[in-house]
């Protein structure tokens, strides 16, 4: 019998294009199969991120989303299809991901993330891939990752532009960059302003690539950098970030000691839904 150690015959074939890569190999693929990642949001960013992470054979993939699939999501949220409208995004996502790779252990978290539950949820994961669409959740995820010492692979989109970064414990965070969320009403939501459907495909895929690189410990991480993408110019710009010693959560004398539930201002801005 052919001895391929712990890989099954199917895994050898499924992951062969990874295993062939000198920077991955069987050892790297095993790291991926042992990795535990949490995806915050099964929407625009979470769709491509989840699909590629599942395809890559990430061992355990948690998905947090309390929402249901809406027809207006399908322009960009490729985890979901026409027949999923009205269904829970977590359930719809799980079906798609299971079809891509049944090797992956999927854990569905159908709750809205709050200061009460986030620490318990992220506890069991190594890397958090933040694909949320609102500031309260983004700051909650950031602060929780800092407090729990988890890597945070950040992505955000607006109109035709995206931002991506990686925040590693002790090396800066989203608050070092943007100390406070904008006041309610100051920034229009995607619901209001619109977003190019393919944009989260690009940004979420970059998040997946960064998360995979963290697991494999290869290449140059976006840690310490912010990637700015503009789909209209088709330009990528990388700017350096520094940890802010006076950051309220990860600085030398942090003033934020417990998690904050910011006002859910996205819902305040909600445009009337067709009824």
């Amino acid at each position, binding site marked *: 019998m*052919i*001895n*391929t*150690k712990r*890989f099954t015959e199917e895994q*050898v*074939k499924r992951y*062969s294009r990874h*295993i*062939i890569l*000198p920077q991955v*190999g*069987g*050892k790297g693929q095993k790291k991926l199969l042992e990795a535990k990642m949490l995806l915050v949001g099964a929407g625009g960013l979470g769709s491509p991120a989840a699909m590629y992470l599942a395809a890559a054979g990430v061992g355990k993939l948690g998905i947090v989303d309390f929402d249901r699939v809406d027809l207006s999501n399908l322009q960009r949220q490729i985890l979901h299809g026409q027949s999923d409208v009205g269904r829970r995004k977590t359930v719809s996502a799980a079906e798609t991901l299971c079809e891509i790779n049944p090797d992956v252990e999927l854990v569905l978290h159908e709750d809205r993330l709050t200061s009460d539950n986030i620490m318990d949820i992220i506890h069991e994961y190594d890397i958090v891939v933040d694909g949320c669409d609102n500031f309260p959740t983004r700051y909650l995820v950031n602060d929780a990752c800092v407090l729990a010492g988890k890597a945070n692979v950040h992505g955000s989109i607006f109109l035709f532009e995206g931002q991506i970064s990686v925040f590693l414990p002790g090396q800066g965070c989203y608050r070092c960059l943007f100390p406070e969320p904008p006041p309610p009403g100051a920034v229009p939501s995607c619901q209001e302003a619109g977003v190019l459907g393919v944009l989260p495909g690009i940004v979420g895929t970059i998040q997946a690539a960064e998360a995979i690189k963290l697991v494999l410990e290869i290449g140059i991480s976006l840690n310490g950098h912010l990637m700015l993408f503009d789909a209209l110019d088709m330009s990528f710009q990388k700017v350096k970030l520094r940890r802010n010693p006076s950051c309220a959560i990860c600085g030398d004398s942090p003033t934020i000691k417990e998690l904050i539930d910011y006002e859910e201002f996205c819902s305040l801005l909600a445009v009337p839904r067709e009824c």
Partner: protein
Amino acid sequence: MAEIARVDAELDLKGEICPYTFVKSKLELEELELGQVLRVVVNHRPAVENVPRSMKNEGQEVLGVEQVNDTDWEIIIRKAV
């Protein structure tokens, strides 16, 4: 085959085709210690060139490639990285 000190592991890959001949050889080699020697037997003709080339690309040492009978070839690789 000329003097090959010692073969530490053998892999029968008859019936396998590329790229799995290399993939499985690589996986096997990963389990060996530096300096250990792997003997792979293939009967897929393209693998006779492909496996040694890919091994060299990865920095491994190919000690020999030789036809052992009408259908089979052996490839001897020493783990160098």
